[in-house]
């Protein structure tokens, strides 16, 4: 059986800057895979390439064996890739329920009517927002907006879920709740790729991870082994401090 997602020698440059430099990796079904690296190392660009927000200059991305690189973002979404954004993006004129519904109508799953409302309510309960269906999202706190965004992403029942620093900006108690929530989604058998700066979360949640630096893969493997690698430490702290 083919991997849930495979990335083969993908390259993307902006002018003279090579943001992603011949990157290759595979994510297995049901795996929670971490994508880490210092700021500006190309992690978000990689997620944008997978989700179709950007097109790679070279290389190939496959979803369950089928090529998705080169397709428009909406087609990739329909094939089963869902994402959240680094800076939370909710639909400001709508309430929580309609925000979640947006994920389940046009994408990988195509629901309408009572079934759709039912699903939105279930997912809001799953992310801890039971009974808050009709609260306008603009009146919600940052973490609640993040929950809504996460519920919208899983509403499409994606084959692969991309989380772009979903835990960033949460306070310590919210962080614990957030980690627990991602763990719960993973236990449901979802394939998740998470870009993250919170190392505790990577240690707790991920089996394997990949470290990027200046667009290149510098280390991939089991989390404990990768995080103690001297080259990874150097990439994070700089040469002088290592």
């Amino acid at each position, binding site marked *: 059986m083919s991997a849930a997602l495979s990335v083969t020698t993908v390259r993307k440059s902006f002018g003279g800057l090579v943001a992603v430099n011949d990157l290759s990796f595979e994510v297995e079904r049901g795996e929670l895979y971490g994508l880490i690296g210092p700021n500006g190392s190309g992690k978000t660009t990689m997620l944008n390439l997978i989700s179709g927000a950007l097109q790679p200059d070279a290389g190939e991305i496959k979803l369950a064996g089928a090529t998705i690189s080169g397709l428009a*973002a909406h087609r990739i*979404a329909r094939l089963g890739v869902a994402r959240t954004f680094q800076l939370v*993006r909710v*639909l400001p004129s*709508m309430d929580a329920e309609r925000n979640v519904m*947006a994920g389940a*109508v*046009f994408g990988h799953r195509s629901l309408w009517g009572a079934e759709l409302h039912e699903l939105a309510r279930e997912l809001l309960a799953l992310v801890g927002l039971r009974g808050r269906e009709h609260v306008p999202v603009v009146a919600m706190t940052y973490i609640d907006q993040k929950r809504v965004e996460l519920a919208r992403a899983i509403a499409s029942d994606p084959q692969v879920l991309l989380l772009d620093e979903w835990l960033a900006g949460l306070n310590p108690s919210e962080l614990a709740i957030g980690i627990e929530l991602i763990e719960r989604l993973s236990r449901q058998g979802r394939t998740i790729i998470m870009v993250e700066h919170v190392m505790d979360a990577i240690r707790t949640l991920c089996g394997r991870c990949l470290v990027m630096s200046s667009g290149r893969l510098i280390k991939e493997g089991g989390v404990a082994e990768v995080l103690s690698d001297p080259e990874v430490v150097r990439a994070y702290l700089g040469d002088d401090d290592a």
Partner: protein
Amino acid sequence: MTRFLPDEFRIPAIGAGVIVLAALLPLFDDGFYLAMAVNIVLYAALCTAWALFSGPTHYISLATAAFFGLGTYAVALGNELLPFPLLVALGAAIAAVLAGFVGAATLRISGVYFVIFTLGLAELVRQIVSWAQVKWSTRMGLYVFTDFTEAHIYWMLLALTAAVFLTGWLINRSRLGFAMQIIGNDEAVARHCGIDTARLKIILFMISGAFIGMAGAIVAPRYLYVAPPSAFNPTISFLVVIMALLGGTRWLWGPLVGVIPFTIVMEFVSANFPNDTSIVIGIVFLVIVYVLPDGVTGRLEQLLARMRRTSTASKAATVKEAA
């Protein structure tokens, strides 16, 4: 209270009642008030059709005159050859095709360019029609002789307005309407939710253009003599934007709130200051943008929200005092 209708059908039922009442007007007057009513229903149809697209997408189209003029010309050219209803349908189809091309060419680019492009397009179509007329018919205009009275035109425009409202209501309840709301909120999120944003915007622009073309076709007999400067008059495009924004585009009935007072004021201005009409329109436009950026309906919503807050606050204060 007895509920005669479920909530979701109450609004269309009220709308149908209003239309039936409006349809009785020609029985009472066939002069000044009917002429004014024709202008009101004409702009009600145009502005609501315009807002079907521009409301949710926030793209300001100035191509209204192009679609309108093509509808007018469909009737002017084919009047001797084909039955009138067929010509109206033809006007709709031609306008929709043009909207499709414009959409495919421009909707991928950002809002400002879209505005300029649509304005240029309307002018281009007008110039092409003028050129073609001089070249092939050696006349600047065409006569449109029909048996339609002012009342007939009024009823047809009223039916068209009803059709635009019904279409808008159905779209708002459909997946297309939900998709347009998502696009209006955040286009990138819409794409990642699986929405083919470019295609849906083109479809909606075509629907909007088709209705505007039909309006142009229906009023053609009223002009008697059709020439490019009147059929493709850019003032039509600007007036539609002004009235729709005055009313507000968040609700389907928003533009109507702008159309009725504006048409009446315009009637008054053009009767009393025939030489300064454009100056007055210009000033009114500035005032609207400055004072009512969200239109009358947007302002009403704000006022309602404020009243609700004040009443909740005063209730809370009363409770506090009692305690």
